[in-house]
């Protein structure tokens, strides 16, 4: 699998795909996309990289164990879900910044939530795939 072409391509592809996944995440509120799809795309990017450069390289590139992303992402989602409770609003109530921000548009708790989803999806998918590749 570790052909030169694939390796070169993936060196190039990984940042592009990651950027793309972020883009998908951010635009999700307006166009097709969102945390799930973004996360899955990012995961595929890393998987491709692992195929091309070997699991070890990808892992060093990642620096942290992908599993760590799961609690982090879930915490993010959890926090954005429970924050409204402190304003005496029900769980998951959307909170919005009063002014839209350029590029992203309206900034609200929904985006934090979606980012949490994004991280969890990356973490979970990579944990699954990496564990299997190590064991296989």
């Amino acid at each position: 699998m570790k052909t030169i072409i694939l390796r070169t391509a993936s060196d190039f592809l990984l940042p592009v795909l990651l950027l793309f996944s972020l883009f998908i995440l951010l635009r999700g509120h307006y166009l097709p996309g969102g945390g799930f799809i973004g996360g899955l795309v990012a995961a595929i990017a890393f998987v491709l990289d692992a195929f091309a450069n070997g699991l070890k390289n990808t892992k060093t590139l990642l620096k942290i164990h992908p599993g760590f992303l799961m609690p982090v992402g879930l915490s993010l989602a959890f926090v954005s879900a429970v924050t409204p409770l402190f304003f005496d609003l029900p769980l998951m109530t959307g909170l919005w910044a009063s002014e839209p921000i350029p590029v992203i548009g309206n900034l609200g708790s929904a985006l934090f939530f979606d980012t949490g989803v994004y991280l969890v999806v990356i973490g979970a998918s990579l944990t699954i795939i990496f564990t299997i590749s190590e064991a296989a």
Partner: protein
Amino acid sequence: MEILLAVITGLLYAAGIYMMLRRSLVKLILGIILLGNGVNLLIFLLGRITKGKPPIIPEEAKVFQEIYADPVPQALILTAIVISFGLQAFAIILVKRTYKVLGTDDLDQLNTTDEDS
């Protein structure tokens, strides 16, 4: 088209169940995936299908002006797909591990826990 899709739905259910009824662990997984797809299609179809009108509000507008596809089933299916992914991944690993520990792919060999001990 709905008729054709309804038939395909039925076919996916039938194929899923048939594969689950086989003795091979691999076929069991394939059956599970097929059945999952069948269910997704059923929900999609029963949410009434619409061609070429994605549920995205046009850039200039604030509400929909014309007919659009029902977004609710789409959201449900999206959730279901991701959940199924988790379950299927787990199932694949479970099968792999089972094969490794038991040394067989034959489901009929997996009946010691039902025997009286």
